[in-house]
C-alpha cells in the first residue's frame, strides 16, 4: 500500500525532470544544452518528436536553469496552444516582449543569466501559417535580445523559413531500458513494489511514450484481436460483422485496434506478402478516415471486409 502522498500532484508532474541533465535518453540535446549553460550562448531552437519524449520538459528546464526563479518571470515568455496565438498576438504580444532589451550578462545567485530573453512556443505545429510567417522577421530583428524555442510533434507543419532559422533537435522515443529504470525509480520513491514482469509489460505497452507509460494506456487484449483475425480468415461476412459489433460494444478504441490488427497481420506466417500489402493499404486509409472523424464501426467493418476478400482464395 502506498503511503498517503503529501502533494496531490499527479506523478507525471511530480517527476518531471527539473534539470537538463536529468532528461532521459536525449543525449545530443542534453550535450548541446549543457554547453549552453556553460557558455551562455544559444541559438534559436526547434524541438520535435513524438508525444511524451521530454520536449516541453527540456525547454522549461533550460529556462529555469538559465535564469533561476527570480528572473524567470521577466525573461521567459511561455505560450502554448491554450493561449490565443493568432496573427494578432504575434504582432503585438510576442513582438513587444521580444523588443525589450535586457541588461548585460551577470551571474546572479549561481544562475548564468545570459543577456537575452527566451520565448517558448509550445505546440508550435498548431499555429497558423500566417502567424508563423509573421514571426520570421521578428526572429531576425530581435535576435540580439531574444531566443525562440519552438516545440512541436510534426516538424513538417513548421514552415521552412522558420525551421531553417533554428537548430533542430529530434527527440527519440524512449528505449525500453530507460523507461524501465525511470519507472522503477518512481516506484522506489513512492514505496511501491513492481515485479520484473509488470515492468516489462508496462514499457512494451507504452511504445516509447514515457508519459503514457506512467499513466498506463489500456490496450486491446490479444484475444480480441486474434478473434477478429480468425473471423476474417473464416471468410464469413456475418460472423465477422458480429465480431466487429462486439469490439465496438466493448468500447475498444478502433485506432488502437487497427494498429494491433496491423501488427498481427504483418507478423502472421500464413498470409502471403501480396495479401498483407492489400490489407495494410486499407488499414492506412481507415486510420486516416478515423483521424478525420469518421465512424469507428463503419471503418473497422470496411477493413474487415477487405481482409476477408484478401484472404479468401479466388
Amino acid at each position: 500500500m502506498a503511503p498517503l502522498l503529501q502533494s496531490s500532484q499527479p506523478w507525471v508532474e511530480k517527476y518531471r525532470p527539473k534539470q537538463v541533465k536529468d532528461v532521459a535518453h536525449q543525449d545530443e540535446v542534453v550535450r548541446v544544452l549543457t554547453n549552453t549553460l556553460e557558455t551562455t550562448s544559444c541559438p534559436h531552437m526547434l524541438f520535435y518528436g513524438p508525444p511524451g519524449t521530454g520536449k516541453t520538459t527540456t525547454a522549461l528546464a533550460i529556462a529555469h536553469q538559465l535564469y533561476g526563479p527570480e528572473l524567470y518571470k521577466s525573461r521567459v515568455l511561455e505560450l502554448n496552444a491554450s493561449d490565443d496565438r493568432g496573427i494578432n498576438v504575434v504582432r503585438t504580444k510576442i513582438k513587444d516582449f521580444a523588443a525589450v532589451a535586457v541588461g548585460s550578462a551577470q551571474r546572479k545567485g549561481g544562475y548564468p543569466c545570459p543577456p537575452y530573453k527566451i520565448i517558448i512556443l509550445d505546440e508550435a505545429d498548431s499555429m497558423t501559417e500566417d502567424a508563423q510567417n509573421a514571426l520570421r522577421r521578428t526572429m531576425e530583428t530581435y535576435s540580439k535580445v531574444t531566443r525562440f524555442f519552438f516545440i512541436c510533434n510534426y516538424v513538417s507543419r513548421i514552415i521552412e523559413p522558420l525551421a531553417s532559422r533554428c537548430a533542430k533537435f529530434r527527440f527519440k522515443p524512449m528505449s525500453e531500458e530507460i523507461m524501465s529504470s525511470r519507472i522503477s525509480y518512481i516506484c522506489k520513491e513512492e514505496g511501491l513494489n513492481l515485479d520484473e514482469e509488470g515492468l516489462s509489460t508496462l514499457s512494451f505497452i507504452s511504445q516509447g511514450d514515457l508519459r503514457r507509460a506512467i499513466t498506463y494506456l489500456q490496450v486491446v487484449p490479444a484475444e480480441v484481436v486474434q478473434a477478429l483475425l480468425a473471423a476474417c480468415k473464416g471468410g464469413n461476412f456475418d460472423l465477422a460483422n458480429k465480431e466487429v459489433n462486439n469490439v465496438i460494444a466493448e468500447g475498444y478504441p478502433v485506432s488502437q485496434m487497427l494498429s494491433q490488427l496491423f501488427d498481427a497481420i504483418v507478423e502472421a506466417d500464413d498470409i502471403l506478402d501480396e495479401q498483407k500489402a492489400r490489407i495494410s493499404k486499407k488499414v492506412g486509409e481507415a486510420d486516416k478516415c478515423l483521424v478525420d472523424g469518421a465512424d469507428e464501426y463503419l471503418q473497422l467493418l470496411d477493413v474487415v471486409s477487405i481482409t476477408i476478400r484478401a484472404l479468401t482464395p479466388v
Partner: protein
Amino acid sequence: MLWLDKYRPKTLDRILVHEEIAQNLKKLVTEQDCPHLLFYGPPGSGKKTLIMALIRQMFGPGAEKVKVENRTWKVDAGSRSIDIELTTLSSTNHVELSPSDAGFQDRYVVQEIIKEMAKNRPIDTKGKKGYKVLVLNEVDKLSREAQHSLRRTMEKYSAYCRLILCCNSSSRVTEAIRSRCLNVRINAPSEEQIVKVLEFIGKKEGLQLPPGFASRIAEKSNRSLRRAILSFETCHVQQYPFTSKQAISPMDWEEYISEIASDIMNEQSPKRLYQVRGKLYELLSNCIPPEIILKRLLYELLRKLDVELKHEVCHWAAYYEHRMRLGQKAIFHIEAFVAKFMSIYKDFLITTFG
C-alpha cells in the same frame, strides 16, 4: 421520475454493472491521488453514472446539489469580442459542461472559459480535498484546435484541478490528450447484466416479470442499458401485468428506415430515389443524427443482401460516411449512398438474372 433516473446508482458501492471499475475508482480517490480521467465507451454504458458517483465519492453528498446555470461569456478574440452561451452544471466542488456546444467557437471555450475555471484555486478547508473537478462532456466532438488548447491547461493547473473527460469514441481524441489521462474503458453491459438490472428494478417496483421477458428486452436493446430501461418502462405503461408474448415496440425511426431499405430493394430508379429523399429529409428534420441513419440503413440492407454484395456495400457506406464528416450537408452523402447502392444492386440483378 423516470425509472432511468430513479434507479441510477448514486454511490460507487451501489453500482451494479461495472463493479470492478467502480471499486478501482474508489481506491483511486480514497488514496487522495487522482489523475485526470478519460472515460470512453458506447452510449448507454454508464459513463455518466460512474462519473457522478465518483464525484460524490470525492466530495460527499454535497456534490449532488447542483445548480444549472445558463451563462454568457464575453470572450476577447483578437480584434472583436464574441459572446458564447453555455449551460453549466455546478456544485461547490465541480463544474460540468459540454464545450462542443459552442460549435466552431469551441476553441475559445477551452482557451478562455475552461482555463479561467481551472486557474481559480478552490479554498482549502480542512478535511476537504484541495482540488476541484471539471467534467467535460463529448470531448470527441471538440475541434482539433480546441483539443490542442486543452493540452497545456491540463498540465499547468494539475495541482488543484482535475479534468474528467467523457466521450464515445476515443479515436477522435488526440493522442496528446489521451496520454495525459488515465483511460477508463466502459464497455456496454452484456445482455445478462442488463437482465440483472431489469430484474432488480422489477423487484423494487413490485412487478411480476414473466420468464424470458427481461431477456427479450435486453436482446432488443443493442446492449444499451439506457434503452433497455426506457423500453421496459414503455412496456409497463402500455400493458401491465406483462404477458410473456407482449410485443416490445421498436423505435419508430428504426421502422421508418427499414421501410426505406425495402423501398430501395424493390425498385431502383430516379423516381424511387426522389421518394426516398423525402423520407430521408423527414428523418433528418426529426433530429436523427445522419451517421445513425446511414448505419441503420446499412444494417437493414445487409440483412437482405447476398454475400457477394455485402462487402461492396459496406465499403461504400464507410466511404460516404467519411465524406459526410468532411462535408457540410449530410443529405447529399446519404443520398449518394442510396444512389450508389441502387446502381450496384441493379448491376447485380442484371448480371444474375439477365
